[in-house]
């Protein structure tokens, strides 16, 4: 696929030829991010892209991240696609995804094999009980941080509660509930909270 033309002149300023990575460079950069991303990949991606390899400026990275958090899918996976395709089109995007995912997939499958093998041992089972309780806490903390800006906004909080009831209590299928909830939420907040 041909490199789509950049939609904004600012894109052209990105990377002089010196910092504009090739496909192999994109693969290598994201491979290192995947390797190092213990406990959160995004900070490592920012460090690699902005500080170490200087592919993007801080402001450009923030723009890309804003887009990638807006779209569905894993945020960091979207960042790899956006950055890879920005420099080298479709091959760049593919190189970025493969680089990012290769090591983590291999490692996680190795861990899964070890877990399956030793899951019945009492020590491993107990360690996993502790680990899983802490992992739940990570999701709870993340959800509280996301919900924090909604405090005091009655309509927004009501939508959050309705979503919780629909998904966690009634257990409606997401492909059914999500479009309805999202469209209703956008319409209600647009009309009454603008």
């Amino acid at each position, binding site marked *: 696929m041909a490199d789509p033309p950049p939609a904004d002149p600012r894109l052209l300023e990105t990377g002089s030829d010196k910092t504009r990575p090739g496909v192999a460079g994109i693969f290598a950069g994201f491979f290192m991010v995947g390797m190092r991303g213990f406990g959160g990949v995004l900070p490592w991606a920012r460090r690699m892209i902005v500080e170490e390899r200087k592919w993007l400026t801080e402001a450009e990275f923030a723009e890309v991240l804003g887009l990638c958090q807006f779209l569905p899918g894993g945020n960091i996976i979207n960042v790899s696609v956006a950055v890879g395709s920005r420099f080298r089109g479709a091959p760049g995007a593919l190189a970025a995804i493969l680089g990012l995912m290769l090591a983590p997939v291999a490692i996680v499958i190795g861990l899964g094999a070890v*877990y399956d093998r030793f*899951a019945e041992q009492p020590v491993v089972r107990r360690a996993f009980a502790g680990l*899983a309780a802490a*992992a739940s806490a990570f999701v*709870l903390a993340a959800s509280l941080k996301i919900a924090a800006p909604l405090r005091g906004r009655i309509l927004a909080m009501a939508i959050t509660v309705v979503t919780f009831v629909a998904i966690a209590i009634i257990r409606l299928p997401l492909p059914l509930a999500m479009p309805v909830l999202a469209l209703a939420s956008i319409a209600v907040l647009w009309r009454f909270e603008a």
Partner: protein
Amino acid sequence: MNDPLVRLSLLFLQMSLLAFGGANSILPELQRQVVDVNHMMTPHTFAALFALAQAAPGPNMMVVSLIGWHVAGLSGAILTMACVIAPSSVLTFFVAHAWYRFRDAPWRRAIQKGLLPVTAGLLISSAALLIKATTLDWSLGLLTVAVTGLLMTTKVHPMLVLGGAAALGAVGVVG
């Protein structure tokens, strides 16, 4: 259609485009499909796989490849991962180039604003379902509360917290 791998692939192709806010917002649906509807694993195994993904390097989405691996081995891991990545990546690929044109558009802000409370509800749902599966006794519940407090108030490294929690479990302080 009866092949578990085909069912998982179709599930993840859909989930890819519904994962606003990343992997954590599709956890309730994954658990519903994998545990409740298709009986591929217990809620406890699901929570354990999630914890394993959390402890491994890489994106949150890694839980998807673990589910695939648990159900159908190596081919399951790779296929499910490809299915959850492809649709959203194709979308990002095409939208990224048009982003500058609409990033300040009122309708884009309205969408973002409207999605936030829904995403918050999905994440709280994920947390509630995981906590229900991981709180095997009061001490583990206490650990979840303590870790949440720690994460909300300090900048302690995630790996330190996970390692500490696993150690507390291993020596029998909790669980």
